[in-house]
């Protein structure tokens, strides 16, 4: 076996291998592209479906960020503007004022302001909220459910594997299309 023939054989094998590699990769990508026609593909973002959310409180603790990228948001259109807001006040709160002993929110991120008798407006201070869902629990259990958790898409690191989603008890966190990057609460089905 002469030197030149050994070399050319190696080159031929290399070519063959490259060809096989291109075919394999092309096969995978081709299959993906063919499949693509049958499914929505493009950018997707993690988001919480408020209807599936059980406000378990894990959003505050499971996120890779501290504080979490999850925030409470307020759908004012659904809000009853109650004086006794069950999202704002703890159960059996001694008085309906903003004293710390009455508030549900551990970080005092909800601001209560008087609109007119007997209505109060509740706004969330985005920067103070830690996504613990205590107010959401109160609002959904006793009120209209206008307070809801959402992932702040600017804070979110868009992890390939969302650590909150992996630990969500009700699979409420899924990837959604960018057009639905914030999902407002809807009326619950029967």
């Amino acid at each position, binding site marked *: 076996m002469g030197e030149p023939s050994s070399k050319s054989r190696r080159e031929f*094998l*290399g070519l063959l291998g*490259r060809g096989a*590699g*291109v075919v394999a*990769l092309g096969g*995978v*990508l081709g*299959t993906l592209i063919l*499949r693509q026609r049958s*499914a929505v*593909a493009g*950018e*997707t973002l993690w988001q919480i479906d408020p*209807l599936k959310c*059980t406000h378990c409180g894990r959003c505050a603790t499971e996120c890779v*960020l501290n504080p979490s990228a999850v925030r409470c948001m307020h*759908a004012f*259109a*659904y809000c*009853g503007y109650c004086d*006794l807001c069950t999202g704002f*006040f703890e*159960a059996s709160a*001694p*008085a*309906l*004022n*903003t*004293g710390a002993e009455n508030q549900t929110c551990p970080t*005092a991120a909800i*601001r*209560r302001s*008087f*609109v007119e*008798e*007997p*209505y*109060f407006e509740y706004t969330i201070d*985005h*920067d*103070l909220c830690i996504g613990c869902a205590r107010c959401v629990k109160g609002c*959904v*259990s*006793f*009120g*209209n459910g206008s307070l809801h958790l*959402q992932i702040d898409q*600017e*804070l979110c690191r*868009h992890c*390939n*594997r969302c650590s909150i989603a*992996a630990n969500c*008890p*009700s699979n409420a966190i899924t990837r959604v299309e*960018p057009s639905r*990057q914030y999902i407002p*609460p809807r009326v619950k089905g*029967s």
Partner: protein
Amino acid sequence: MTTTRRSFTVDTLPGAMSDGAGAQQGMFSRFRSQIIWVFLLLITLVTPASAEERFPPPEFRISYSLPTQQVIKARGELWAAADVLVLAAALVVAAYFVHRKRSRVGVFVLTAFSIAYFGFYREGCVCAVGSIQNVTASLVSGGGLAWWIAAFFALPLITALFAGRLFCAGVCPLGAIQDVMLWRPIQLPRWLESSLGLFPHLYLGVAVLLAATGTEFAICRWDPFVGFFRMSGTLSMLLIGAAFLAGSMFVGRIYCRFICPYSVLLRAFSRFAKWKVHVSPAECTDCRLCEKSCSFGAIKQPARDSDRPAVSREAFRRRTRITLAVGVALLILLPLLGYFTKGALARLDTRVDLALRIQAEDSGRIQGTSEESSAWRKTGETTDVLYARAAAIEYQLGIGGALLGTWMALAITVRLMRQSLPAPVKGYDADTAACLGCARCFDYCPVKRGSNERVLVTTSSASARGSA
């Protein structure tokens, strides 16, 4: 740990402020509130806890416009396209520094850039290593795959097919952060190198299997460095990452060589590379400085008669026979064992976990409910569906486990067989499959490009070439 938008001021403390109505509340209102609480409790007990409009939105007498919730949108698709462009550009730059300039300094600068951009700026998501799972999941489920994830998966492999593992050279942030940590590398013995090299195959197989069944994205979950890039993470994650970084101070790129699942694909593809890394631009002088310079065990020894003095034709045949016998034995044993791993693997799946939990609760083995089980019960799904799903996952993991066993048996056999292959090179050179393209050896090689630059290194001038 993002606090850039947070402005903490003392006046947000409750008690410091009180609103107009709240200040006038006395004993009576407290009493009233108690009644309302009891009433609310009754309502909740009677009506199911669905978020219907219990309190219709008020019609205000004063002019009041509803505040709008300010939402901040994500970066959008254009940025993903930018990431792909940066990746492609980085691969081209790597090719230029490794193959054309043969410059360690250039590769080091690229490494620093990758740590900064793909690592700390883009925070490691999505990376080529993790994209294996997205591609698998998409192939199996038929769900969509964003084009740039496909690009992240394919570009490094295409590069490997033509120009070797340039992605590892200085583009992959996981490799880059280990590379800069290299301090006092020890050379692992060949036998350890070739035996530990099997574990990436195992990791790849398990990760693909778990991604295919939708159980877990194992590569992302156990990514040791992403916690550093995000500058946030659980304590255990950061400690594991720190351990890997500490390890890579002594054992060069410990994750890349013995764990990284993507390395399996890159190795396979780079074997056929058209442009390979050659340590010496001309004839090798057998000084073996490159072997010393390579911290990753990627320098092949030349095939010389002295290398295999004792191997007779008979011994070679015997070894081949033993290898084949071992291969056949593994091909029977590992798929069988692999099939039965399904029970253990299935318990990693939250859907299976839920089915087990419900089963235990229903049979009275566990008292009380978990968040998961009570959330599931609210969906109204029947246990039949739940159990059928869990059983289906276990079934799929059984089939997948058998395939995993087959894959490992083949990987081991091929590796054993490759040991008997003669090295095809004449002098010392880089093993294309193992070479990470770090360009360290170029500085060490006494043979320089162009015959007039050819200098033989002497004992005195050999000191201090290249950076660590």
